């Protein structure tokens, strides 16, 4: 059952990575203008 230790460790690391990415995107203002972002992808230059 020692494999459990590794699996839990991996799942926690993945989760923490996702959390860190989300917090980074939040900090860099990617949630400030959701309407604009939705429209911007239609204009690609």
């Amino acid at each position: 059952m020692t494999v459990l230790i590794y699996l839990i460790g991996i799942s926690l690391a993945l989760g923490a990575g996702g959390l860190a990415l989300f917090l980074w995107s939040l900090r860099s203002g990617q949630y400030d203008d959701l309407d604009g972002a939705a429209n911007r992808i239609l204009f690609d230059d």
Partner: protein
Amino acid sequence: MNATSLTGISLDAARGVPAKASSSAPGGAVCAHCGEPLASAADADLATAQGRRFCCPGCAAAYATIQSLGLGRYYTQRVLDATRRPLRPEPTERFDLARYIRPGANGVQTLELAVDGLQCGACVWLIESVLAREPELVSGRVNMTTRRLRLVWRGEAETAERLVGRIEHLGYRLVPFNQACLAAASENASRTLLRALAVAGFAAGNVMLLAFGVWVGFAQHMGPATRVLMDWLSALIALPAVAYAGMPFFRSAASALRAGRTNMDVPISLGVLVVVGQSFVETLHGGAHTYFESAVMLLFFLLLGRVLDQRVRQEARATAEHLLALRTSEVTLLQPDGTMRRVPQESLPPGSLIFVAPGERIGADGVVEQGASSVDASLVTGEALPQSVGVGSNVFAGTVNLEAPLRVRVKAAGSSTLLAECVRLIEAAENARGRFVILADRVARHYAPAVHGLALITLGVWWLGLQAPFGQSLLIAASVLIITCPCALALAVPAVQVIATGRLFRQGILLKSPTALERLAEVDTVVFDKTGTLTEPNFMLASVPDPEAFRLACSLAGISRHPLARALLAASGPVPPALGAIEHPGSGIAWAGPEGEVRLGSRSFCGLTGSDLVGGEESSDTPELWLCCPNHKPVRFAFVEQLRPEAAETVHNLAAKGLAVELASGDRAESVRAVAAALGIGSAHAGITPVEKIALVKTLQQAGHRVLMVGDGLNDGPSLAAADISASPASATEIAQNVADLVFQGRSLRPIAEVVDLARRARAVMRQNLGIALFYNAAMVPLAMAGYVTPWLAAAAMSASSLAVMLNSLRLQRGIGR
């Protein structure tokens, strides 16, 4: 004629007017740039370029610029929004941009501007593409949610003028604002909530994973060592996560307790803390009763609700802030040496002399020293027709100078103006309303003591009554607290609010207060303002007496900004204005025509006496214009207020729901009576002041009624705030919109009836939810008190009750009103 002006208030008269080009022109030609309807092809005056037709040279120039930059794709990709300001370049007032520029490091300058006229995503692309061609620009980004443009460039502060000029040339209006003044705080609040949500989500996911392992392990005889490891891992994740993500609730609960009150956050905080604390103690002992997953899942769901709620309200606030930013805050000061300078309204000393250009909003209270004009005082008095002012007349801040330049000696500025006084009245009335206790808090008030009492009784009975060991008694008492953890109870009301608010938002109704729905559901009386609320903000021509005269009148009216002149133009579409016509402020327009002088204006301006009037046209109650040509009979143009679409239907609908409808207006008795009769409103109050409006609302409230006030003017502001709940149309003054609990878009009044309907259904669902939550608790508490609660049972009961509450709330999504 007479009959028309009386019944002209009904909608049928509105349809009777030919060529009402301003609202829509199905199949008619539109300007290639701004998309506004064009007049008939016979008008040679209109600008033409590149085979396209434009309404004005400004639009033609903007079109040429966009094509020459290779951005013509804009026209095929945009979606014009009729409710927004049309994209027509107009001369605008100049702002002293330098005051708003924030210099940064390395010679970088930043300027924030509110953008008026933003129609859709294509506008964002156009503005950013045009700016991208400026070499000095570091970044120019439009935030579509808040409709703001942030300019960052390298170099001189003067570059700003050129950058702003480029965008204004396209037809947008840019107004600088001081970012510090507008709530940056709300942005922080929503980021804090999102961060808390992310942390709670991370913790919930991982702890749930471990918890599933433990649950399955129970069935498969997991060894105690593995279970303890799982519990310790859960504790390591859950403890910091709860400490961080629970903060919004803990803070709110602590401030409520400090004030000697209790709100829904108190049982939530207590529940979460007790669950986590007890689980941690169990973990230390290596016991099996840990519920970390319940605590973090509860936090996650609650935060989800808060984030959605916050987002909807932020959207509403952004709209209000946008309007606030667009309001002129600068006035032209005439200095003793005769030069003019733009200064902020607040810094104007009393006794100074200001210059007010035609079309400009007067920035201070004062007395006219020079000039004669008329002012639109609808914002302050609610009177729709402009008032004439001359030397010695009093004018007030917030009114608009319509016709000719004025010099005004300032009596009061900034916070001492009538406008500011009205705002203060509103604030006082709003404070008085803050006493409303929401349903959830009313329940919490009884629920929390009851639960804590039950837990205490359980402890006493087991320990003292049944002589059980203290540790075991405490555990059973804790399980009572856990099983009654107000998970479903805490979701019962917010879940409904989020769903109802979101649905209203999609229908163009902004709910600005979280308690608005509950207050709305209790309303039994609706008080409407008349001008601008039941009626449309603009006047409408009742009928066209003579096409020849109509055309002539319109060309004269073309040079004026007077509301009646604009109403004439609205009925005809653009016409070439009469060159050389002269406007006499407050009386009319004169034009030297080929056959002699032509006059368009008031009865006295046209020199009409009783004997000139043809029988049947004596009624001067309705606004009118006269056209006098040499050798012709004078022609009368009568104007009526046009009712909003579906006004009668809405009033009828509200009455059918058992609500009493009243009308309160500052307007004259005749026109108020006519509107009341047309709509079937029994109780109408005419000629009342803002203070009397508050008194009316208060009298109704003292008689035990719950009042919904619908109004749009500044003069409605205090009564909007005094009412139990208030609504205003999106065409209302900024102040009315700021005060109102809900703002509805569009011209129709139907949203009022719909929102009352939805609020009542929402209240019913909230009560069902509370019933479901309390039922689960009532069923589980005896088991817990008897000591029969296992982790399986607790988890199942908690999830099932939360799920039932969520599913019940979702029913609100279905079925659109009718």
